[in-house]
């Protein structure tokens, strides 16, 4: 049996000030370490997803659409080019959602790991930001991969198309922050997943001008797009990847909408984390 001496009481060892300035990064480091356990699966999905979508809907269905609309195209371009920026933003949103909702429920409920983090100098705010940063990281590389596939499919027409990467990540960040705040409030996640999947994610995906211009929807359904981060990011993405016409005012509106959602999401997430941990 070992006779290891355990040292104790070195009041100088831990530098609480250092944790106060870098805490969120420590949390993100640990989260990324967990992510690495699944990295091949995540990367596989991140590459397979755009390939499958762009082939089936973009090229398959797109071929039919391009035939019937003629040389005018959809919004002036091939259907594939029209569709791709929406899927790019959707990939970012899905990525941040997976990386905020599940870890948050796990941290508070399934394994209660947030409580063990909070027993260190880390605060609820830092834990919340750390989880969020990790989600951003995941959204970023998912979007970069998606963008690469879009390029390979010839879905990019503008030289500044790469700017669609940050706007897609921005949309993911806005939605992810809000979802993280919601997930932090959950006591019963089962109902949440049903509601989220069927009544939030699905309608947002279908009714955000993803597969057709929002304006071709009946007016009374268009509001779904207006409140959807996916629509705002898609409009920006289309503008950047092929020059979809939007007024400068609307560009501001899109950024402002996503920005407000992000700030509110982060604010409430930090607050709910702090409150729930201190109960």
């Amino acid at each position: 049996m070992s006779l290891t001496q355990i040292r104790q009481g070195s009041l100088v060892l831990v530098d609480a000030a250092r944790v106060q300035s870098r805490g969120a990064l420590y949390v993100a480091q640990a989260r990324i370490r967990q992510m690495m356990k699944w990295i091949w699966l995540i990367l596989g999905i991140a590459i397979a997803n755009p390939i499958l979508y762009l082939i089936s809907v973009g090229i398959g269905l797109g071929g039919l659409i391009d035939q019937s609309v003629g040389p005018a195209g959809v919004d002036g371009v091939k259907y594939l080019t029209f569709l791709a920026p929406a899927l790019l933003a959707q990939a970012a949103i899905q990525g941040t959602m997976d990386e905020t909702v599940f870890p948050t429920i796990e941290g508070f409920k399934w394994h209660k790991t947030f409580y063990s983090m909070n027993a260190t100098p880390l605060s609820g705010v830092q834990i919340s930001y750390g989880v969020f940063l990790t989600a951003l990281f995941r959204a970023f590389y998912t979007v970069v991969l998606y963008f690469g596939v879009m390029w390979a499919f010839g879905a990019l027409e503008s030289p500044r198309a790469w700017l669609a990467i940050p706007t897609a990540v921005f949309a993911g960040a806005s939605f992810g922050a809000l979802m993280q705040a919601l997930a932090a409030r959950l006591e019963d996640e089962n109902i949440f997943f049903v509601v989220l999947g069927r009544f939030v994610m699905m309608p947002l995906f279908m009714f955000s001008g993803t597969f057709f211009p929002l304006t071709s929807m009946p007016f009374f359904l268009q509001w779904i797009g207006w409140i959807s981060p996916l629509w705002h990011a898609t409009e920006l993405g289309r503008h950047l990847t092929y020059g979809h016409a939007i007024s400068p005012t609307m560009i501001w509106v899109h950024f402002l909408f996503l920005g407000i959602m992000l700030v509110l999401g982060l604010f409430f997430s930090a607050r709910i984390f702090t409150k729930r941990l201190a109960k």
Partner: protein
Amino acid sequence: MSNPLISARGLTKKFGDFTAVNGIDFDVFKGESFGFLGPNGAGKSTAMRIIGATSQRTSGTISILGKDPELHGPQIRAHLGVVPQQDNLDMQLSVAENLYIYGRYFGLPRKFVKGKVDELLAFAQLEEKRDAKVETLSGGMKRRLTIARALVSEPEILMLDEPTTGLDPQARHILWDRLFRLKEQGVTLLITTHFMDEAEQLCDRLIVMDKGTIMAEGSPASLIKDYATKEVLELRFGSDRNQEMGAKLRTMCDRIEELPDRVLMYTDDGEALLEKIYAADFHPKTSLVRRSSLEDVFLRLTGRTLIE
């Protein structure tokens, strides 16, 4: 005596209408092993979470390492090692990774933590499980890992909430051995438990809690001396007759407790009392003479047993 590491006065915590901790006072000194003994729901865990500077008190004062947890939570937590009632380990990571990331949460340098991980794996007797996923560990191993994790920052105070609840006897003994070593090395331990044998083994001093208040305070030996007799004679007459026989035996000793399954007679000489009982023509089905324990102290103080 030197200044206490922890000092609480009138400490109170309410959840809505429910008062979990009701105005308790206590001091914990350096190098001491201090226990909270009480049944489930006595307010021990709530008190621990306040001392752990994560849960805020409703009223009263508390100072931990000279600081107020409401104002200096992170600074206090930097010097505490916390072992919660439920192991909240990271199930997806390996044993060594769990220790490593936890050290990083304290902002400790990578190199230092790496050395510390080896040291703690040896302490927790988990060297062979170094790369195993936490999911695959037994309950006792998880518990040892949680304790090792709490030591990664070389804390000033190690707090253990129900350290051996849910473990089998062998795992408990291994754990007690580890904790006893820490105690020998002068680590300040704060332990909650509803096992009297655990409190007797590990605590220098303890408070007995019930319904959020302190019923008594002292060393295990002094509490037994003050609130119980040297020995206890346990008699069983069969479930339906214990009550009735207890009433008849009442005059034969200082104090008697009639429990549903047995009668407890408090005396300084159990064997002598038993002889007297046989001589008086009573015939219990079984009899047992034992030393008084904290269980008896608790029964005396609250009229209830610890584990109900």
